[in-house]
């Protein structure tokens, strides 16, 4: 599996979330993802970016186009925020209760093929998500 290209975008303001959506969309379209798959990965990116912004207090996203037996997109969201104390709990749906405090991680996870969360309380969080074509 080879990385064809990478882009790093800041996730510091609300406008950045829109930029994230646009860039992930462009990348997925260029790789020839189906419309549904494009929508899924862009939506996942939106969820994770908002997370990074609101819970992580701002960070960045690294967007990589992958080439292997299949093409893919890898998103890595990193922040130096408060971290997630209980990752398993966070992955269980928080937002469907409508409280609006959910982390959206569980939802994003379902929209991609590979998903990994690394977090340390007081140090930060790193979320890696990959969607294959």
């Amino acid at each position, binding site marked *: 599996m080879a990385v064809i290209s990478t882009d790093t975008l800041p996730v510091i303001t*609300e*406008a950045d*979330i*829109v930029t994230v*959506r*646009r860039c992930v*969309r462009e990348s997925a379209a260029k790789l020839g993802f189906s*419309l*549904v798959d*494009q*929508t*899924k990965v*862009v*939506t996942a990116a*939106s*969820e994770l970016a*908002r997370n990074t912004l609101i819970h992580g207090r701002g960070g960045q996203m690294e967007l990589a186009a992958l080439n292997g037996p299949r093409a893919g997109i890898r998103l890595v969201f990193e922040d130096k925020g408060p971290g997630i104390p209980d990752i398993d709990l966070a992955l269980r*749906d928080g*937002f*469907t209760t*409508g409280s*609006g405090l*959910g982390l*959206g991680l*569980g*939802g994003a996870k*379902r*929209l991609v093929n590979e998903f990994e969360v690394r977090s340390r309380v007081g140090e930060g969080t790193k979320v890696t998500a990959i969607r294959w074509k």
Partner: protein
Amino acid sequence: MEKIPILRMGEFLLVTIQVDMHDRLAMTLQDDLTNRISHTGAKGVLIDISSLEIVDSFIGRMLGNIAAMSRVLDAQTVVVGMQPAVAITLVELGMSLEGVRTALNVEAGMELLRNTVNSQEEIRYGSHFD
């Protein structure tokens, strides 16, 4: 700052969302709509999302909030034109948009609003004609 225009069509309000909204714009829309419903006494709100290619949990919640707040103000909300890819993604996300009524397009949405409003009025005023 840009705002999403809210049109008045008789006793209904029509909102067409055509841009990829950032969060603040979505919140502004929520506020604007609630104010307009209150000021105009509108009985129904039609939200056209046929141009929206992405509906994430934030927008989904916004739609749910609008429906709930409208109901408190005695108005019905109908969301129309959701794209298939968006619907599939929302289901995968786990969002069911409880309390939000939907229709295929503006025409169907209008019909739904009219029927709902009429039947409500029947319930309200029907006893007049005993």
